[in-house]
């Protein structure tokens, strides 16, 4: 592995970590709402969250590119805020990855919250815990397996992204060139030996992650998708 490969690995880990943290922060309230609401909007929100599961990454990438571009609403906003345009930046990759991996975080969390049922929350209320207190002291600890699955799946899925990254981030070394893109470059350049190193590392990494999750928590993925 050369310096470019290492830079790609580092960038991938950084991207996956940032995205996972953001996904947990954003996905938790969405999952909590979905698990408990009786609103008619529930189905629509679930469908939107699940869209990345069925759409090709090029479609999501295309619309994000339009939105974040100079004429898109997001692009105008970021320009007005003095942030500049997001496509082909790390921040742009983060936003795209968060959207793209959202179902992998929301669905296990939603299932975990739903599995708790009404009763422990009612018991907590009769024990003087406010709804906010109950969420942190009862719901989150009881949904721990769900959080583990969500974090692992969100992280692993972000590491495994390719299409969205190419659409939004392109191929800028140390900025948007993640491992999956680096492998693509190696193969394009017929550098099969180097491609092998990274590809095998990805394979091993993904296997180990899933193995650990299934071993620690056999229920984790059940009904998680």
């Amino acid at each position, binding site marked *: 592995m050369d310096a470019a490969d290492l830079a790609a690995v580092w960038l991938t880990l950084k991207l996956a970590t940032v995205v996972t943290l953001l996904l947990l922060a954003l996905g938790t309230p969405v999952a909590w709402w979905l698990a408990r609401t009786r609103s008619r909007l529930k189905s629509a929100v679930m469908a939107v969250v699940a869209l990345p599961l069925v759409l090709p990454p090029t479609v999501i990438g295309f619309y994000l590119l339009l939105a974040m571009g100079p004429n898109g609403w997001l692009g105008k906003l970021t320009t007005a805020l003095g942030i500049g345009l997001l496509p082909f930046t790390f921040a742009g990759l983060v936003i795209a990855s968060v959207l793209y991996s959202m179902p992998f975080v929301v669905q296990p969390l939603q299932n975990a919250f739903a599995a708790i049922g009404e*009763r*422990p929350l*009612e*018991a907590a209320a*009769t*024990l003087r815990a406010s709804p906010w207190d*109950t969420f942190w002291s*009862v719901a989150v600890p*009881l949904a721990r397996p769900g959080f583990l699955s969500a974090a692992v799946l969100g992280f692993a899925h972000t590491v495994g992204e390719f299409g969205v990254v190419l659409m939004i981030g392109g191929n800028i070394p140390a900025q948007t060139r993640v491992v999956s893109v680096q492998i693509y470059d190696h193969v394009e350049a017929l550098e099969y030996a180097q491609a092998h190193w990274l590809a095998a590392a990805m394979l091993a990494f993904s296997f180990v992650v899933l193995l650990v999750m299934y071993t620690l928590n056999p229920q984790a993925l059940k009904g998680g998708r």
Partner: protein
Amino acid sequence: MEAHDAGIRARLRLQRDGFALEVDLALPGHGISALFGPSGSGKTTCLRAIAGLERVPGAYVAVGGEVWQDDAAGIFVPVHRRALGYVFQEASLFAHLDVRANLAFGRQRVPPGERRFELEAVAALLGIDHLLERRPDRLSGGERQRVAIARALLTSPRLLLMDEPLAALDHRRKQEILPYLERLHDELSMPILYVSHSPDEVARLADHLVLLDAGRVVASGPLGETLARADLPPTFADDAGVVLDTVLEGHAEDGLSRLAFADGVLHVGRRSEAIGSRLRCRIHARDVSLALSRPPDSSIVNLLPAVVTATVGTDRPGHVLVQLRMGGTPLLARITERSRRELDIAPGRTLWVQIKGVALLR
């Protein structure tokens, strides 16, 4: 029961999927009040509405002078701000916490100045002090329910609500918990509202009885008086009988023990409790027979004079229920319609009751 603010008031009206609830409860602010009725009679809904777990529009709920819900005045105190304890049918312990942390959960959320009990003392009262480090999944059903009761008590509630706390347990576990419930009753001055569909539990524990049927209050009053009402619907009359609170007065030389109640003495098999102990016993209507004069040659020990106050038919063909008073103490007897006719039993008539069996409840 006075209308002043020490008691429990609940006016609830609810219409939902073919189920109508319309109750106006006024219960004493002390002792155990039982909400008794067949399943589907609205017991649990009442309890959940009083707790605020279920919001019944237009309801009025006040406990110990504190208004918890008065929709007419726009008041609805959220559940977690009500000084109540709630014991569910299933223990509903927090699986991620050990017993000690479960017990501490509610207690630590009550301001220190309002805490009336120490964790260790309540654990000892319910016999779970050796289980504090266990996880809930390592407890038996009976132990779990005792932890749930202790956990509720530790919030120092002004009202303890119990929703069939024994219904999910087998007979042995029930027998294991009942003495602890009696201890709560005897040692804590905390009103308890106890939902049950078991006549035995009610007879054993309750001081005040509310009979619910199809969402309505059929009867409400002190246990002894209410059980002795002969005009109750068949659901309740089937297991008819009265409950007497007695004091163990002494022992006769022939091995029997004397139980004194307000208007007489009952003799039962020798009791091991201390003289002066309060014992509650149940006399089933089917165990009481009637005679016009004191039978000179009966093998039955407990013979007492009584006055007939009413007779009513039962849903058992050929039988009637006779309501009597021994002084101020009510009693029920179930006899055949033929005997009633032949003995000419009618209100006002004085006769002798023969009590064939006395069941000691506690």
